[in-house]
């Protein structure tokens, strides 16, 4: 079985791999190469998903469907959601940063199963191309990223079947990745490194991977049943043939509520790495952070039916799922206050990484509040399937996770490339993104509360002005990508040389050269007992003498 490289092969691996640019297009087993493959591939899909979002917002500038026909709108909408979730957010917060950072954090030279890791990545490009090609070949799926029957069983079959195939491949990739992360965090730790000494991102990835392994297979099974309904005309989810649509919803959300945590837990972890470094303070409440991640994992598995309050869900079930959902706000709130406390009194360097992290905290708490509101049945029955829900989850997924992805790129770019990003462009990027994002999505709360349904190409003319506001915000978001793109490309060649540890950080990935050697560290892996030991006088850092921004720029 080709589950992993034999341990003995480890020493020979580097010489077998291509070097230079070529390795990024190869079946590399180096976790750093794979991490970057995930990141760049994910970003390309983000640009595609962004273009699709642009098409949606253009259509919605006017109340009539004059920019594209309605069925094309449905396809664009479905592709947008699927691309953004399965090809951008999930691969990037898990695969990209996970692969790059986790081996460093556990003091290993690679992931537990390097070859499985490469397989997991190489499932993604074909799956993504398959998905997008469906638009040109037969017309893409039209039933949204949720693929609810009967929508998915009554719209054109070919596009839906390709969609299912693609999501199955991506789910497989995600499961392989999850197995690898669990094994790496639990089994590959450097001797002497205890679980409770790991950087928080390891815990976040452990929790996320547990969710991936437990819930993604259920989605796979469900989609297989759905494909039977489409191709073989069975009636699992077809009441006309004695089946039951609600069972699909239960199975789907058993995966997809955990999936929202698969998208946001890693982001929690990444912010927890970034903030202490730039505030020169230990992460506040390490142990409570760990316990709340694990509480979210457990609770996250038992709240799924809050997506189904209007699906004829019986009262006892509504009650149970409302209460369970309210409970999950507790560990989430603990994390929120821990980040605030980490910032509190810190010597904060307000650089792009911190700006995006703070943007995350603000947006995420807004999305969390609307989330708790949505979990209340009397409120939800009014706004379910309206733009309010769209606003809610974009505040979480974009305002939360995507902001963190950008923060992480600003934070780790020096490590990956050996050069600094341009700060001015970074701040411009943040400003445009933050304003554009809020302008785009804040008005959608109002739209939803006033009854505009989601997933429609045409709407009541009274909503036109607010939709135009929202579209203007989307335009700003699109523009905000330009300084970012220019920055990452230009800085790769002309940026200032970063040095090994430009932020004076303590986590192990900084205790090596930038970019790191194939074996991660020349010689022995460092043993970091206190990844957040800032504020403890360590000879490397003179806290009394310097402000945060001095420290941050002192590595030049």
């Amino acid at each position, binding site marked *: 079985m080709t589950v992993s490289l034999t341990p003995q092969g480890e020493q020979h691996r580097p010489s077998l791999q291509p070097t230079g640019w070529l390795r990024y297009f190869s079946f590399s087993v180096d976790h750093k190469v794979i991490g970057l493959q995930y990141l760049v591939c994910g970003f390309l899909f983000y640009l595609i998903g962004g273009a699709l979002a642009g098409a949606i917002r253009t259509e919605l500038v006017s109340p009539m469907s004059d920019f594209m026909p309605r069925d094309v709108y449905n396809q664009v909408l479905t592709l947008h959601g699927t691309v953004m979730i399965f090809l951008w957010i999930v691969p990037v917060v898990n695969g990209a940063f996970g692969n790059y950072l986790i081996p460093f954090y556990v003091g290993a030279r690679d992931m537990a199963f390097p070859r499985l890791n490469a397989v997991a990545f190489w499932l993604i490009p074909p799956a993504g191309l398959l998905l997008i090609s469906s638009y040109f070949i037969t017309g893409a799926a039209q039933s949204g990223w949720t693929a609810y029957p009967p929508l998915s069983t009554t719209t054109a079959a070919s596009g839906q079947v390709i969609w299912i195939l693609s999501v199955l491949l991506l789910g497989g990739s995600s499961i392989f990745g999850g197995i690898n992360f669990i*094994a790496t965090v639990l089994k590959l730790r450097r001797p002497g490194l205890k679980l409770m000494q790991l950087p928080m991102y390891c815990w976040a990835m452990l929790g996320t991977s547990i969710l991936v392994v437990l819930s993604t297979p259920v989605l796979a099974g469900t989609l297989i049943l759905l494909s039977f309904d489409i191709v073989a005309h069975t009636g699992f989810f077809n009441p006309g043939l004695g089946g039951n649509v609600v069972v699909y919803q239960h*199975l789907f959300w058993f995966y997809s509520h955990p999936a929202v945590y698969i998208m946001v837990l890693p982001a929690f972890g990444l912010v927890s790495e970034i903030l202490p470094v730039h505030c020169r303070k230990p992460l506040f409440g390490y142990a409570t952070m760990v316990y709340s991640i694990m509480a979210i994992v457990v609770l996250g598995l038992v709240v799924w039916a809050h997506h189904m309050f209007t699906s004829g869900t019986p009262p006892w079930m509504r009650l149970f799922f409302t209460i369970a959902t309210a409970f999950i706000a507790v560990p989430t709130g603990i994390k929120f206050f821990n980040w605030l406390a980490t910032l509190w009194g810190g010597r904060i360097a307000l650089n792009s990484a911190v700006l995006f992290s703070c943007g995350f905290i603000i947006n995420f708490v807004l999305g969390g509040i609307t989330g708790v509101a949505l979990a209340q049945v009397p409120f939800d029955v009014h706004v379910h399937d309206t733009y309010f829900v769209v606003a809610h989850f974009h505040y979480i997924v974009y305002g939360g996770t995507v902001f963190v992805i950008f923060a992480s790129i600003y934070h780790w770019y020096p490590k990956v490339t050996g050069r600094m990003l341009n700060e001015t462009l970074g701040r411009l990027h943040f400003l445009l993104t933050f304003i554009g994002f809020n302008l785009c999505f804040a008005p959608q709360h109002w739209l939803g509360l006033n009854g505009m349904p989601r997933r429609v190409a045409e709407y009541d003319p009274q909503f036109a002005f607010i939709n135009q506001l929202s579209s203007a915000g989307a335009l700003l978001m699109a523009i905000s990508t330009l300084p970012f793109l220019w920055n990452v490309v230009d800085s790769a060649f002309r940026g200032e040389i970063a040095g090994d540890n430009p932020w004076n950080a303590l986590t192990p990935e900084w205790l090596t050269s930038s970019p790191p050697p194939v074996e991660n560290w020349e010689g022995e892996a460092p043993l970091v007992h206190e990844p957040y030991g800032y504020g403890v006088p360590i000879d490397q850092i003179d806290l009394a003498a310097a402000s945060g921004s001095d420290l941050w720029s002192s590595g030049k």
Partner: protein
Amino acid sequence: MTSLKPSSTDVASSATDHAHQDHRMFGVATFLVADAMTFAGFFAAYLTFHAVNPLQPDAIYELELPLPILNTVLLLVSSATFHKAGQNLRKGANQVCRQWLMLTAVLGLAFLVSQMVEYFTLPFGLTDNLFASTFYALTGFHGLHVTLGALMILIVWWQCRTPAGRVTSENQFPLEAVELYWHFVDGIWVVLFLILYLI
């Protein structure tokens, strides 16, 4: 049962250098947890259908039990024979191990044949009604697992050959991995048998 301990023989030295420990069995076990969740989803769907979607009177069957009972016995015995194969490999008796492996594969194939016989004698087809569809989906998905398992057993059987094979008492991983998988597939069958045929 297969142990989840690293199958590398050199456990003592691995304590000092973690890079030399073999975590592949841990990976296989985690994968099987994921696989079990796929079945769990199917079971949940089946049980929900069973509880809330009553069938038309003409779609209610008394399933014949002899064949599925035979199938259960075949699989349970094959788990035992696989266990025997593993024991012999650990003793270094590759030839005996291969005989047990072949017996296991034959039992697995016998299961598949008997399953086919059942399929062709059942009074309903895939799309006849909800129960029929779920029945075929569940047993079919399980049958796929058995087919894959039987193939992998044959591969391990080939790899156990002396003197050139790569599976030896020093390198047991392929056999241990397939053995764990096979026990898992048998366990799933028992659950399947209980909920499909007995309730």
